[in-house]
């Protein structure tokens, strides 16, 4: 079984670009990734592409071949949809294909266009990642779903809105200097606490913004990297995926995310590491409480103990385990289908030393955690600098 290298990465600016189409965004990100890899696009054997709400936002299904065109590829292309984990799933399938010899060069990416819908319509569109019969028809929005988990967490383990605010403050701080981030401004705990409530106990600053953007990575086999003398020091050494019941009401736990626990365990086993080996992670903080749940699922913390991690300075840039050095979904932005591959992009650059926050990384193992819906699906990937 061959190893899988990240040969190149690319991002568009994440933000509000209502005038730009999905195909334009992906054309930019894919071109950047191929340039970064130094690979001619004619060598790409397939495109794995993640997108969630293209039918609603652009009246566009069947985006695989469309995005292959945008990327200038003459190759088969498949769209993966797994809500906010769409491109995480696309990465996992690409890793499998490279490992088993099906392909030597795979372009993986994702894009989402959201701002052209407006806030109300976007809220409605995102809600389709929940159970239509039993959740959406009860008026549950996405922030509401995470609020239900936050409330359950507080009830079971304790924690406060201040603890959540510290996570938002940290991730905004990390985004300072990230040219691709939607928000590049500091916020204070007071700003977060004073912001309007969206779904109690979550306020506006507990939520990621509505974002347009695209990301892409080029994955190649070890053999291909050697034959073409590529400078590709980072490999994906572990992949895992987990699932859970669609609706919160059918879950065993409301304040834990077993789908992420399973994905993490599988990815760690695959890479032959455990949580203590990890130096840096990008986790799916679509809401501040989601970062807490992720840190526990990834086994960085025991159940109920990650809530104060940011406040205690453990997950900040100068802490022992920096989390979301990109700014995370909270400050960098969350163009849903692009998020999974953007996390791999950020980690690759953090590990190879060309990220604005690379100095904060002490070690050579990174983990990406990408969650779909209310964590009914999750992928976890382990990235390591080649020894």
């Amino acid at each position: 079984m061959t190893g899988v290298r990240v040969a190149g990465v690319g991002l568009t600016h994440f933000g509000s670009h209502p005038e730009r189409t999905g195909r334009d965004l992906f054309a930019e990100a894919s071109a950047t990734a191929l340039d970064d890899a130094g690979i001619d696009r004619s060598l790409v054997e397939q495109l794995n592409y993640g997108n969630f709400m293209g039918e609603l936002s652009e009246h566009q299904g069947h985006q695989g071949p469309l995005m292959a065109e945008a990327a200038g590829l003459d190759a088969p292309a498949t769209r993966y949809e797994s809500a906010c984990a769409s491109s995480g799933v696309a990465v996992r399938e690409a890793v499998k294909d490279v490992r088993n010899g099906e392909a030597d060069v795979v372009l993986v990416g994702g894009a989402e266009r959201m701002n052209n819908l407006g806030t109300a319509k976007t809220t409605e569109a995102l809600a389709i990642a929940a159970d239509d019969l039993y959740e959406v028809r009860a008026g549950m929005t996405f922030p509401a779903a995470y609020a239900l988990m936050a409330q359950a967490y507080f009830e079971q383990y304790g924690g406060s809105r201040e603890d959540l605010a510290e996570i938002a403050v940290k991730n905004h701080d990390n985004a300072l200097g990230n040219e691709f981030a939607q928000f590049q401004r500091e916020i204070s705990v007071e700003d977060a606490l004073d912001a309007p409530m969206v779904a109690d106990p979550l306020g506006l600053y507990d939520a990621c913004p509505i974002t347009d953007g695209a990301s892409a990575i080029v994955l190649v086999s070890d053999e291909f990297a050697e034959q073409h003398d590529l400078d590709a020091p980072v490999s994906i050494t572990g992949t895992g995926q987990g699932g859970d019941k669609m609706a919160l009401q059918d879950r065993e736990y409301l304040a834990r995310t077993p789908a992420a626990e399973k994905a993490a365990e599988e990815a760690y086993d695959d890479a032959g590491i455990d949580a203590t080996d990890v130096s840096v992670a990008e986790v799916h903080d679509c809401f501040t409480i989601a970062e807490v749940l992720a840190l526990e699922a990834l086994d960085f913390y025991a159940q109920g103990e990650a809530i104060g991690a940011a406040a205690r300075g453990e997950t900040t840039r100068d802490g022992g385990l920096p989390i979301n050095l990109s700014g995370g979904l909270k400050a960098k932005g969350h163009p849903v289908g692009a998020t999974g591959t953007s996390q791999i992009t950020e980690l690759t650059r953090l590990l190879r030393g060309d990220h604005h926050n690379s100095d904060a990384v002490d070690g050579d193992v990174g983990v990406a955690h990408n969650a779909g819906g209310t964590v009914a699906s999750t992928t976890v990937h382990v990235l390591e600098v080649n020894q």
Partner: protein
Amino acid sequence: MKRHDARDDGFDDFLDAIESGEGFYLECENGHGSLPPRRLCPHCGSDELAEVALPETGTIETFTVVRVAAPEFEADTPYVTAVVDFGGVRATGQMRGVEVDAVETGMEVEAGIGETETTGERILVFHPR
């Protein structure tokens, strides 16, 4: 116009049953509860599902006050969405008959059917016991 003109068998049966005071849920041979429509128990895969009576009261396990809603619920805000534990099964619905700020975890409630303010759509609601 209502969005959900088509009948969703199972789900609408469930709402009908609640409305007529004969709420039920599905229970498999291993005692796992779920709400219809199901052909299999979502917890163990058993196809031996029987309708059992929904207990008259449940307790709020978790809830949130929704202040920013999708267009279909715009006129309903602020409203409480709650997940209620009925023992054998949990259900998600809106709290009625209580100020939004007075809702608490552990509150005892009973299930009923209401309408949304925005669209008049039928919805599962809970009232304080």
